[in-house]
C-alpha cells in the first residue's frame, strides 16, 4: 500500500513524466490466454457438484449477500446443475467466456478446468459449485481479479459457504439431491427469505441419543462442515 500511495502522488505531481511513461503495455492488448482453475474439496462428506466457471470483465456479480439469487444460481445451489448458471452468465454484457466440468467430486478430490480465450487484462473470475448434501448451499468466489497474472503464476483462495436463500434448510428426506438422500434437486418454488447469506451450517440428525439435533434430518454428523470448504487455485498457463 505504502509504495503505491507514494507512486500515485509522484505521478500526480509530474503529469508530463507520467504521460511519457504510459507506453504500450503488452498486457492491455487482446491476446490468447489460458487459465486453469482447480477446486479442491476440503469437506468431510460433502461432494461438490460440477463446477461453473465464468471469466468476465469488471461489472458482473453472480451473487451478492442480501440480494436474491438468480434463477441459474438457484438451479445450481438446489440441484447441482451448472447449465443455466453458465448460460445466464454468458448472456451478461461483461462476459468473456464460461466453462465448467461435468462430474461431481468428493471430499479430498479436485476438479481442474482449463479454458482458453482471447481477452485484454480486464479479467475477473467467478466460480460456483453446490454442496450436494444440503438443501441449497453453495461455495465459490465471485469477481476475483486475475488479469494481472503473468504466465506461470497462480493465485489461491479459500472459499466460504453461502446459502442461496431459495429453499428452507429442512434437511428432510426427499429434499436433498446428494448421495445422503437422493432426493429432489431444483424446485422453482422459493421457500425462504429469498436472499443470499452465509450458510448457518447443517444441523443433521447427529448421533443417536443426542438431544440437540434434528430427528427429521436425513443427514448425519459426517455431513457437517465449517468454513472454508474449498481451495480454489487459478493458474495462468498461457
Amino acid at each position: 500500500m505504502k509504495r503505491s500511495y507514494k507512486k500515485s502522488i509522484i505521478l500526480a505531481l509530474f503529469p508530463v513524466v507520467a504521460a511519457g511513461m504510459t507506453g504500450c503495455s503488452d498486457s492491455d492488448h487482446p491476446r490468447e490466454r489460458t487459465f486453469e482453475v482447480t477446486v479442491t474439496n476440503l469437506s468431510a462428506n460433502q461432494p461438490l457438484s460440477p463446477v461453473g466457471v465464468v471469466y468476465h470483465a469488471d461489472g458482473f456479480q453472480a451473487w451478492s449477500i442480501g440480494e436474491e439469487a438468480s434463477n441459474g444460481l438457484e438451479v445450481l445451489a438446489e440441484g447441482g446443475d451448472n447449465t443455466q448458471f453458465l448460460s445466464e452468465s454468458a448472456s451478461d454484457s461483461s462476459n468473456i467466456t464460461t466453462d465448467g466440468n461435468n462430474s461431481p467430486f468428493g471430499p479430498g478430490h479436485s476438479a481442474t478446468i482449463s479454458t482458453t480465450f482471447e481477452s485484454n487484462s480486464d479479467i475477473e473470475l467467478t466460480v460456483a459449485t453446490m454442496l450436494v448434501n444440503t438443501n441449497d448451499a453453495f461455495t465459490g468466489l465471485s469477481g476475483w481479479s486475475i488479469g494481472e497474472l503473468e504466465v506461470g503464476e497462480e493465485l489461491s483462495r479459500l472459499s466460504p459457504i453461502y446459502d442461496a436463500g431459495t429453499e428452507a434448510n429442512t434437511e428432510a428426506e426427499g429434499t436433498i439431491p446428494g448421495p445422503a438422500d437422493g432426493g429432489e434437486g431444483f424446485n422453482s418454488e422459493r421457500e425462504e427469505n429469498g436472499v443470499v447469506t452465509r450458510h448457518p451450517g447443517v444441523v443433521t440428525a447427529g448421533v443417536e441419543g443426542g438431544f440437540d439435533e434434528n430427528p427429521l434430518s436425513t443427514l448425519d454428523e459426517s455431513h457437517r462442515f465449517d468454513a472454508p470448504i474449498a481451495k480454489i487455485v487459478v493458474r495462468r498457463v498461457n
Partner: protein
Amino acid sequence: MKTFSKIAKPLLLALPLMASQAPAAELDIEITNLTHGIFFTPLLVTAHDNSVDFFTTGSAASAELQAMAEGGNITPLVEANLEPNAIHSANPAGGLLAASASVNVNMNTGDLDYLSIVSMLLPTNDGFVGLDSWSIPEEAGTYTVYLNGYDAGTEVNNELVAEGTGAPGTLGIPANPGGNGGTNGTGVATTEANETVHVHRGNIGDIDSTGGASDLDSRIHRWLNPVAKVVITVSEEATETAQ
C-alpha cells in the same frame, strides 16, 4: 502517522504553494450482517485512542459490555468513553440490522488510531459481534475485515426467550425479532463454562416449536463464523492549518 509525514515532507518542500496538511482519516465503513437468521441490535461504531478497550478475549467483560451483550444497550459504552478519547456513531442503522442487510457509517476519526464495533446478536443470551481496537491504517485504501461472534461470558446460554430479560444479570433472551423460534423450552444449559469473553459456540436450538430444550430453531438460528463483513475505506482528509 510517521509514514505519512515522511512522504509529505518532501512534497511540501517541492510544492510551497500547497497548504500544510495534518492527516485526519475519513472513514467510510460498510457493515454487512452475513448471517442467515440473526439480527444485530443497534450497532456501536467507535473511533478511539488506546485508553479505550471495549473487550478482550480471555478477560471478563466490563459492566458496559455486559449491558450491550445481554440487552443490546449501548448507552453505557458510549457514556463510559467520551471525547476526546472516543467518538461514536451510535445506532447507525436506526434499529436492528437484519440478516444480509448492510449499513454505511461515515466518520472523521481525527487523530484517533483505533476502531471498535460491537452489537448484540439476537436471538442469543449474551452473544455479540465484535471488532476490538482495529488499527486504522495510515495509508489510504479499502480494507476488508471479517468479524466473529463472541460470547460475553456473563450469562448462561439457556436459549429461552423471555420478555424483559435484557437487563444485565437477568437470565433469558430478551427477544426473537424474527418470530421464527419456539416456546416452552426447558433450557439447553445451566452453567456458563467460560466466564470470560470468548468465541461463541453458536446457538444449539432444536426443531420443537412448543417445547424441547431451546426456544431457538436449529435450522435457522445457528451460524458459522464470520458473522459480519466490514469494508473500511480510508481516505486522508486534508485539514488545512494556519500557515
